């Protein structure tokens, strides 16, 4: 097992004390170390928001992009170099709101990409506006009378949308979360890990205590992740009891990149570029004779 410290870097973390993102950072490092994935073998992608700074706090390849856009940049990289382990870090607004269309489409494609969504159900970095995942009635600076929209459910959407690995973690339980992230990395194909991640400043409802009283582990409850109907029901469970763990997993399906014939000979980014041969050039020109 690699030392977790391998992934440390000297960058000063700017998250608020008590932020749920710390648990996620630790879980990610722990998962990579346990799987012996070295910093150069992995590449992180993130968008904008508190959580999107996570890659900056890691010793690993990364591309911190723009709001909502981590998934398509990651997908482009995966198609250019599928040797890299690709992990996307998005927030709830970032991944499910502004990046919603990319979220819907990446599930249909099934690239071997891990998507960790830090879901605190509020906009933190812009100081407390409601998010797509905020519960109905949630009062914020832009919803003074309470949000009148129903909350976006990433888990039912993912199961419906074709995702073959759908999990929920809790950043207050980083050990369990690390296991989920490990399973997501080991899963061949797109893997969503939605993480209940308390924002200690702006979300006074969905707090650590709120979750601690409610979460239970699916693997301890005898849930069968291969059962799509059961997963669908678990994905809708919210209130007195909130399930964490792997809700749904189907293995053995081909990834997007495995089905691209141009990638059979290895990553395109690793091929040497040279001018075409005379014969190739002639053939290209001849098409227009």
């Amino acid at each position, binding site marked *: 097992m690699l030392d977790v410290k391998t992934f440390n870097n000297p960058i000063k973390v700017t998250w608020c004390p008590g932020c749920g993102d710390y648990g996620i950072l630790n879980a990610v490092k722990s998962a990579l170390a346990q799987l012996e994935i070295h910093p150069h073998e992995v590449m992180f992608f993130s968008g904008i928001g508190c959580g999107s700074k996570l890659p900056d706090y890691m010793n690993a390849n990364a591309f911190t992009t723009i709001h909502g856009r981590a998934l398509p940049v990651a997908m482009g990289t995966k*198609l250019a170099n599928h040797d890299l382990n690709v992990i996307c870090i998005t927030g709830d607004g970032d991944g499910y709101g502004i990046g919603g269309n990319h979220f819907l489409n990446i599930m249909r494609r099934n690239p071997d990409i891990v998507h960790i969504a830090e879901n605190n159900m509020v906009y933190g970095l812009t100081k407390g506006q409601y998010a797509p995942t905020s519960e109905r009635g949630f009062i914020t600076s832009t919803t003074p009378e309470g949000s009148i929209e129903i909350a976006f459910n990433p888990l039912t959407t993912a199961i419906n949308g074709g995702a073959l690995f759908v999990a929920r973690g809790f950043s207050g339980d980083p050990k369990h979360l690390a296991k989920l992230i490990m399973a997501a990395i080991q899963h061949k194909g797109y893997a969503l890990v939605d993480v209940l991640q308390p924002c200690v400043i702006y979300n006074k409802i969905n707090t650590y205590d709120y979750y601690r009283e409610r979460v239970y582990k699916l693997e301890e409850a005898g849930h069968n992740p291969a059962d799509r109907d059961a997963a669908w029901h678990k994905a809708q469970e919210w209130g007195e009891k909130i399930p964490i763990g792997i809700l749904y997993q189907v293995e053995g399906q081909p990834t997007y990149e495995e089905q691209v014939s141009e990638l059979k000979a290895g990553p395109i980014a690793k091929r040497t570029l040279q001018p075409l041969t005379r014969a190739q050039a002639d053939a290209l020109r001849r098409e227009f004779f």
Partner: protein
Amino acid sequence: MAKRINDMTIRLGGEAGQGVESGGAGFAQALSHGGLWLHTYTEYMSRIRGGLNFFQIRVADHPLWAHTEGVHVLLAFSPEAVTNYGPHIVEGGALMFDDTLKFDHDAVTRRNVQLFSMPLTKIAQDLGGNKIMANTCGLGALAGIIEYPFEFVADVIRRNFMRKGDAVVQGNLKVAEEGYKVGRDKYAGSFDWKVSPLGERPDRMLLNGNQAIGMGAVAAGCRFMSGYPMTPASSILEYIASHAKKFDIVVKQTEDEIAAILFAIGAGNAGARALTATSGGGFSLMVEALGLAGMAEVPVVIVEAQRPGPSTGMPTKTEQGDLLFALFASQGEFPRIVLAPGTQEECFHTAVRAFNLAEKWQCPVIVMTEFYLTTMMRTLMPTEFPIERVQIDRGELLTAEQLDRLGEPYLRYRDTPSGISPRALPGHPKAVHQACSDEHDEYGHFEDEDPANRLKMAGKRWRKFQNIVEDLHEPTLYGPEGAGITLMGWGSTYGAMREAVDLLNASGTRTNLLHFVDIWPFPEAKATPLIEAARQLVAVEGNQSGQFAHLVRAMTGRRADRMILRWDGRPLSPEYIIEKLEEAKVHA
């Protein structure tokens, strides 16, 4: 009237689905195989079936640069084609039509236009057994009236219908031959324009701007293309997709243009030469990501095939209205390169250069074309496309061996005198690094507060921008030096300007032409003396405001004396330029 040989314009007009495009392309092939030079021009409506479209072929025994106004023979397949295009027929020209076509004869007979009525459908049914072949019959008749040898038409029929089997080939051949006889025997005597094959018939290519860009991208080692279909850029995506397997190119149609450019940025950052193509509306969506490529210093090539805006505008018409938008799109200041090829051969070379410049300077490169250039075809010698001699310059890309030997920590954004930071691809143990859209330090880590770092990194990027200009080309000068009038243009209006210059000089008006492909960073040092040397500077552009003229004025202080602009969705032609010059009373 004397017979005029090998200089005429043929137009096929009708509804979408009537074979206007395919028939026209086939006839163009037949003329090209006769060693003739062609310039085609097509107009179509934004609909799948019906409507009104034309495919126009200008044919001559010398190289052509533009379409010209005036049609010598119109083969009309619909009444609307007669009504709309009849007025384009020149004095003494002819309207060809199937004898069952009902239309208002007065629309054309008021002028000195001949009516060539022919039983195209009847022949098709009697000899071919299928009225769809009326189109083939018309093309045969067309060859007959211009007395172009039938064998060239027959060759193209054999070649194009080969896949459909011998019966189809034979049926079409019979119908075409009968059409040919009718055209020749009945009407050739009264039609003044003739086309005959040349003695020398070297292999020539007939292609449009998008095909040339696609070929250039393949030649330059493009390994990735993502795109969202949008007229008139889609055919680049289609060209690359059809060559993907042979040339190891990953092609992805994405959910939208935002994803298209982001996929390309992801692939470009990972080390694959990456391309995306769109039109103005799609480019608008890509703008945020353009800034990302600028800030993160990722090489990516973006083709912006313009069409008239704003918004959805005129989807199947032409305009050069997006220049200033492309130069300044996205917030903040960052290096980008804007290139605008004017011809098919320039499309090829510009595509190659775009990939080299993008990797050398690690920045987005925008290639501007427009509908006209993307769809019009010209015949060209294969030597104009030296695919096997293309130079691939990956810039300061560190090899795995160089990285193995690296002593100091790798800095993705190392501050260097040139502004270029040697690039490592993600995946090497000694070059673990981060690319970043926030202001960052030399490592790539967020540093969005520190003013000293801001100055250092913004300075590095700006230095790069200033140095790029050394790599860019000066404008080309065509025509006599010291002319009284200098036409100044950019991109796809080159052909029309060039032919206008030739016509003006032939009539004694000394005129030359200053044409820009490399636009941004503006090649100020190289261009200013040429601009200042102009006695009367006339800006010629396909837009309403003279965008390039504004840029030139901002960069050089020289104001254009006149502007010739067109923004009705139609391309500039040599005649349009000359007419507007005369209206403006510009004299040498």
